[in-house]
């Protein structure tokens, strides 16, 4: 049976239309990327509740705060690069300090942006957002989880950062119902735990399959919520497996690996290895080439697992 493959941003656009029909308080903003982020689907359906700010992300962010302060729920989108770094002061002081209902849904995150190269490959965005009080962060693994994330952001008070990719992603097996702040197991195993978010859940699942063929037994956990972080589950994993590899399409500083290590170093110290970008900028190439080059592919996870298990 062919595995379903979806663009997360298509799912996002469709979910926005659904929310737009349900709730007149939903307002959508974009900064000249509505075709790519798919907010255009909402724009076509509800032109009076959609605003295109042109190439001006700082203004879009601060304006969203003013709109949200008038009992509105604002979804806004641009590429992850510009949603995070470009307008970070506006996100911190105008949106998060005021604890407003602004849901930043950033697309085109990570190295899998591909051919556009380093300037467009956001690898620090989780780090930036995680440092801000009141902000909640979701990194959905696939299309269906994107829908749940958007609905949860809509239903939950306060600011959100939802991180989506550019490319189509296969829908993962054994997906559990999304609960904000909760991780879950999606492949059983007993030797080692792979803890992942976003597109890396698929890579980790593929790695676990290969490892099984080689007689190694890796469990895979999906942590779609980076903040608030599921501390209880990671401690449970540390106790059960003792060996953890965190997999993320992000710099190894400030993202999921940091969240895991911050928790465990305080609550239950064990060895934690990492798969992520090691303090480097990206470059042009196909997503597949880049995942291999930056050590993020399923192959790289397999190799890292084997080394770790030999230790």
């Amino acid at each position, binding site marked *: 049976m062919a595995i379903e493959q979806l663009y997360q941003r298509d799912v996002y656009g469709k979910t926005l239309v659904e929310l737009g029909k349900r709730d007149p308080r939903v307002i959508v903003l974009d900064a000249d990327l509505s075709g790519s982020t798919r907010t255009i689907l909402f724009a076509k359906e509800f032109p009076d509740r959609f605003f295109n700010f042109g190439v001006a992300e700082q*203004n879009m962010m601060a304006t969203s*705060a*003013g709109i949200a302060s008038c009992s509105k729920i604002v979804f806004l989108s641009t590429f992850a690069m510009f949603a995070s770094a470009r307008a970070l002061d*506006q996100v911190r002081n105008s949106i998060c300090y*005021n604890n407003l209902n602004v849901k930043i849904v950033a697309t085109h995150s990570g190295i899998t942006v591909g051919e556009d190269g380093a300037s467009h490959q956001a690898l620090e965005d989780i780090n930036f957002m995680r440092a801000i009080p009141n902000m909640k962060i979701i990194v959905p693994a696939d299309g269906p989880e994107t829908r749940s994330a958007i609905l949860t952001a809509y239903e939950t008070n306060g600011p959100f950062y939802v991180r989506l990719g550019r490319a189509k992603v296969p829908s993962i097996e054994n997906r559990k119902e999304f609960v904000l702040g909760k991780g879950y197991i999606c492949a059983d195993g007993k030797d080692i735990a792979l803890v992942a978010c976003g597109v890396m859940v698929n890579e980790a699942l593929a790695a676990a399959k290969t490892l099984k063929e080689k007689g190694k037994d890796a469990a895979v956990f999906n942590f779609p919520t980076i903040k608030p972080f599921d501390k209880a589950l990671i401690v449970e994993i540390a106790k059960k497996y003792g060996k953890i590899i965190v997999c993320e399409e992000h710099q190894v500083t400030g993202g999921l690996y940091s969240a895991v290590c911050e928790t465990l170093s305080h609550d239950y110290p064990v060895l934690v290895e990492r798969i992520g970008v090691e303090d480097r900028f990206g470059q042009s190439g196909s997503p597949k080439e880049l995942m291999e080059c930056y050590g993020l592919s399923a192959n790289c996870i397999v190799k890292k697992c084997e080394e770790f298990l030999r230790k």
Partner: protein
Amino acid sequence: METKIKHLKNKATEIRKLIVEMLAKAGSGHPGGSLSSTDIITCLYFEIMRHDPKNPAWPDRDRFHLSKGHCCPALYAALSLSGYFPREKLWTLRKFNSMLQGHPDKRVPGVELASGSLGQGLSIALGMALSGKIDKKGYRVYCLMGDGEIQEGNIWEAAMAAAHFKADNLCGIIDYNHFQIDGRTDDIMNLEPLLNKWEAFGWHAIACDGHNIKELLEAFRIANSVKLKPTVIIAHTVKGKGVSFMEHVVDFHGRAPTEKEREIALHELGEIENIEKDIEEEE
């Protein structure tokens, strides 16, 4: 009209005296810009804006956003005099556990949203204005900016967008006192030709004397009547207005008066005239 102006002048003096007292007690803060913006804030809170201190969340209220957040002593004084909170609270400015933070935030009744990081307020005000349009409400949104502040690029992004979206329910005011922390705006980063800049961005621009109540009221009246474009009032002001040794003195951008300076300043500002009788007569 004469009585109304007298009444507003009186309020402005009261606010100025409160600013001096608050800052002297706080031991830090920004007197220069608070005093230069006092007459603008007075006109808004005591004449122009429809607002209800008993019901700060009234959905149809006119909104005010202080983009130059460091001048909050003027705003806090106006809110207190309007009846949003008791006067005693003013003496807690900048103190630990006070709702009157060094830069304003939402915990203060009457403050819409936090400010302090310069350059974001016009966008915030635009958001409130757009929301009013979506909801087909008649409220107006006023945003007070500093002159140094408009060196921020975000202001001009907002200026472009407000004209594009025809936000005629938005009125920006620039407290043009010609000073910023490091010196004169002309020397640090020239803003001129300022009126032409706003006009070129698609705004209706009015220049006026920012300490002349009559001129300010007229400017707000015009702003209220302009359709299909936002209005900016470039209010020419004097930094530290009303206290001789603070006027045009850059040092008082961000320094509180000493005890001695407080006394002299309060003396110079004079007594609040009793005009209750005049008001009764006019009525």
